[in-house]
């Protein structure tokens, strides 16, 4: 049985008197412990897909199963990492990690120890008493990842988590995330619009079409032991998959762009 299963999931919005279809007939299986990346042009409904999986928005038709049970709302079996970190600015790094544990009703004494453990895991030992405004973007995202890992969800949902970071920080955090994934064995659903990021991280990459979002193709990226490879990005295999996904996406990006122009012209 797959860990996560999308069965004919559609999502429509009512906007300005008309209904907009954001997602149409999504069928997708994610295996236990898999790192799945969803990539698509901007505005294709990637984030909506994650909101549905996170239980933060309601499904228009179809259903999403996690461990065979349909998603009806948010739950601590799924942890979400947002692009804009979503840290509580009045809490320290430690306090932010403990926030998730409070939601899970972990006893106070355990919370502190757990929070330290996970801050160590994301490489933030010694930064536990810093406030978000004292941390760089990359460090904030590490705190957010630690927060989502600390309450021990089975599934980690990541919504373009590195999009707001500079290239160098992003590369570093990608390696870090792979290391954490291998260490914790979580199932990760990762959303991005970056092709290289998708190939670098994903065991499988699902390419979405432009609006309405459908699964165009799912590409297997059978590169083993990613974190052990010295310079994966210059590997010919990497270039091959990059090109494959680029080709799949190019048409969608063009379509999305011309549609946008059309709308603006009207």
């Amino acid at each position, binding site marked *: 049985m797959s860990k996560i299963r999308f069965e004919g999931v559609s999502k429509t919005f009512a906007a300005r008197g008309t209904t907009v279809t954001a997602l149409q007939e999504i069928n997708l299986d994610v295996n236990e412990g898999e790192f799945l990346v969803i990539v698509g042009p901007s505005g294709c409904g990637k984030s909506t897909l994650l909101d549905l999986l996170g239980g933060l928005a309601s499904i228009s038709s179809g259903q999403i199963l996690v461990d065979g049970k349909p998603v009806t709302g948010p739950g601590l079996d*799924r*942890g979400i990492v947002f692009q804009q970190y*979503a840290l509580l600015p*009045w809490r320290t790094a430690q306090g932010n990690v403990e926030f998730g544990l*409070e939601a899970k009703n972990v006893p106070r004494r355990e919370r502190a120890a757990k929070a330290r453990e996970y801050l160590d895991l994301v490489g933030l030992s010694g930064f536990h008493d810093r406030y978000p405004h004292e941390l760089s973007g990359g460090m904030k995202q590490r705190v957010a990842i630690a927060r989502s890992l600390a309450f021990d969800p089975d599934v980690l949902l990541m919504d373009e988590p590195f999009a707001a970071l500079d290239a160098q920080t992003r590369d570093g955090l990608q390696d870090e995330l792979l290391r954490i994934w291998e260490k914790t064995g979580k199932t990760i659903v990762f959303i991005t619009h970056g092709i290289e990021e998708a190939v670098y991280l994903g065991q499988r990459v699902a390419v979405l079409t432009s609006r309405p979002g459908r699964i165009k193709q799912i590409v297997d990226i059978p590169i083993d032991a990613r974190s052990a490879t010295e310079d994966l990005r210059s590997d010919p295999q990497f270039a091959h998959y990059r090109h494959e996904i680029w080709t799949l996406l190019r048409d969608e990006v063009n379509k999305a762009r011309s549609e946008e122009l059309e709308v603006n012209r009207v």
Partner: protein
Amino acid sequence: MSSLTETPVAVRAAPVVAHPAAATAAPARRWPRQVLRLTGNVLTRIAAIGALALVWEIFPRLGLVDAVFLPPLSEVLVAWKDLLVSGELWSHTEASLARSAAGFGLAILVAVPLGLLIGWYTPVANLLNPLLEVFRNTAALAILPVFVLILGLGETSKVAIIFYGCTWPILLNTVSGVRTVDPLLIKSARSLGLGPVRLFQKVVLPAAVPTIFTGIRLAGAASILILIAAEMVGAKAGLGYLINYAQFNFAVPDMYAGIITISAIGLLVNQLLVVTERRFSTWRTHS
């Protein structure tokens, strides 16, 4: 700035030279300049007050203004000292502060919970907003006669008018504080499965605290401003009464002594509230 000093030729050649002094300054002379600027800043701050004091002292003495209506500052200070020594000043200040504190405190107790309620429950906000708009745009002093009419000339009407004046800034800031919480924080908390009560307690309330404190600071300033006007109507003690009474009896130095006292109290209260506000919102000022 550094690019300016690196290319002095270009700067000189340019038609507009914004800071000619900065452009010609050698880096070695920067440090003494900073010290100079700092002392300059301090001097500037003192200078304006000093100049006012000086003008106040000299103009009446030179006969440029009528010394009967504006006695020299030194005479006012002597009058102030006399009032202080006789204990009169303190008793008036005490009466004033008691009224201010009562109205201000009551406003905090009522307006903060009410504001949280209005901010959190949209139907309540929709219901009450038009009413709030009407009242916030009605000057508190315009309603003072109503308060006197209904509550009489005693303490109740004075405390009530201060309470009324303090309520609006606190209420409106609390409502906006609750309503402008970063939606992403709420989304993130919801994704953790937090129920409405804990969401409010752990996210909305702490996020709103700085905005609420801004309202409390504004209300603190308002409490002193309204106090004086309220005390000018049928009071038997208080700084507003002192000022009014001194004017009626032509004890002009006493009147100015009262004015100086109230302005000092106003400054002090505001400073105190600014410091408190800063303590509660350190995380906001940096982000």
